């Protein structure tokens, strides 16, 4: 049975699979199911964690977990939306140590809080970087502040 069928059988309607090509597959999943799905890919199906990408979008920060299946020539990407303004996401570093650094990076660059992460100190930014300034967000720091004030 191929990998996509195994995933489909186990998660049925909790996920949306988009096959861009035979080698590039994207799976959209809700935040609540993401942990189970990624754990299944990494621990049971033996995927390699390539990296995660954060993307700032209007409703929240999108996190893409790129899982490589080296034996099957497949790059599978799990797409999760972490909604603003809470921006909370469970950590995956407990079952997948490879994710520890990139979660720290997404935390400092986008402000996503990874619940349960052992060490969310800055990795790339200087120690005296001002709090609440996230370099890879789309808006400027000032414009985000203004938006917040307008909403309140």
């Amino acid at each position, binding site marked *: 049975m191929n990998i996509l069928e195994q995933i489909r059988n186990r998660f049925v309607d909790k996920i949306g699979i988009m096959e861009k090509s035979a080698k590039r597959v994207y799976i959209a999943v809700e935040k609540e199911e993401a942990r189970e799905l990624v754990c299944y890919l990494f621990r049971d199906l033996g995927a390699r964690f390539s990296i995660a990408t954060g993307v700032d979008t209007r409703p929240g920060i999108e996190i893409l977990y790129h899982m490589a299946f080296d034996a099957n020539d497949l790059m599978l990407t799990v797409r999760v939306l972490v909604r603003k303004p809470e921006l909370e996401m469970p950590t995956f570093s407990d079952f997948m140590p490879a994710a520890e*650094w990139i979660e720290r990076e997404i935390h400092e660059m986008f402000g996503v809080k990874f619940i349960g992460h052992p060490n969310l100190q800055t990795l790339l930014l200087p120690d005296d970087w001002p709090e609440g300034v996230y370099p890879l967000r789309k808006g400027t720091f000032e414009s985000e502040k203004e938006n917040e004030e307008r909403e309140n």
Partner: protein
Amino acid sequence: MRKETLIPIGPYHPLLEEPEFFKFYVEGEKIVDAEVRIGYNHRGIEKLAESKTYDQDPFLVERICGICSTSHPFAFVRAAEDVAGIQIPERAEYIRTIIGDLERIHSHLLWVGLAGHFIGYNTVFMWAWKYREPVLDIFEAISGNRNHYGMFKVGGVRRDIKDSDIPALLKAIDEVEKFCSMLTKAVMDDPVIQARLKGIGILKKQDAIDLSVVGPVARASGVAIDVRKDHPYAAYDRIDWNIIVTESGDIFDKAAVRLLETLESVKIIRQCLKQMPKGPIDADIREVGVGEGIGQHEAPRGEVFHYIRANGTNFPERHKIRAPSFMNVPSFKKTVIGESIADAALITAAVDPCYCCTERMAVVEPGTEKVLLTGEELVKLSQQKTEGLKKR
């Protein structure tokens, strides 16, 4: 009370002269805990790439790394081509393969030389760097540059290899092969190097999988992954070559994997030069379009990963870059604990981190921050250990 001493190493790596800051906690000579701090060299290239066009970005990402400068443009153009869903001309695929693997040879030789210097084998350093020179000459003949070749563009390559140049290039490759196999034999058969490097800094196979390390670090620990074989691209699937995999995961194996890979790269380049079909070198793409794309390339240090989200304009909306060292460096926690200070700098350099460590390593007394040992003294410690082995 535990007698623990803190040794900060950095923010420059003693061996690689790039910024990276290690803190080692030692009891006597044994390392009991370790921390790392990176980011001294963060230049915000991901953000900068969003304000440059798809034609400019290959030049930008080429400047991420001075040693493996082609790896990032290679992954970037593949990501952009993945968005557009296009095939590039066959001749361009071959030229890309030649550039990619020439780079592997010179990068591995550079590391072997530095590692040799660090254990007090300056002969290895002199040899490796001397024999790296003809590789750079070949680069100059092909691209006009010894480094930062500017060969890649979305849809193909920028310069062709003239047919009249091929006999001379083949001859130069033969020379490189002679040097590489001589160096490989000399290093791998040397009893002192074996005694010095075997059994230290071991990364176990399960740890390698858990940490998802890539490239020679993974292959030295028995994880047989190589983007060139697993996710075939360019001309790698049309050529006969082998993945080098060893089992023990110590520094000797990491060196062996790199040395043997230079010989495989010679094989790849020779076949490419011979088989290369005639034809165009550029698909002449006007637009990248809308969508997402992923590009991978097996750099000398492992898989380079680029992700692009395109919104139909001439600029990427999001460009994620992941260099192999980002996955490889965290493995130091598994390899360095329990080893002695004399080996620490060598172990942290064994993953060939593509950024920095310390010429100002220092052993410091806890609390007082008083410097007990300087970086130079630590290098001496490492070289003295080798001297001691030679006398035995």
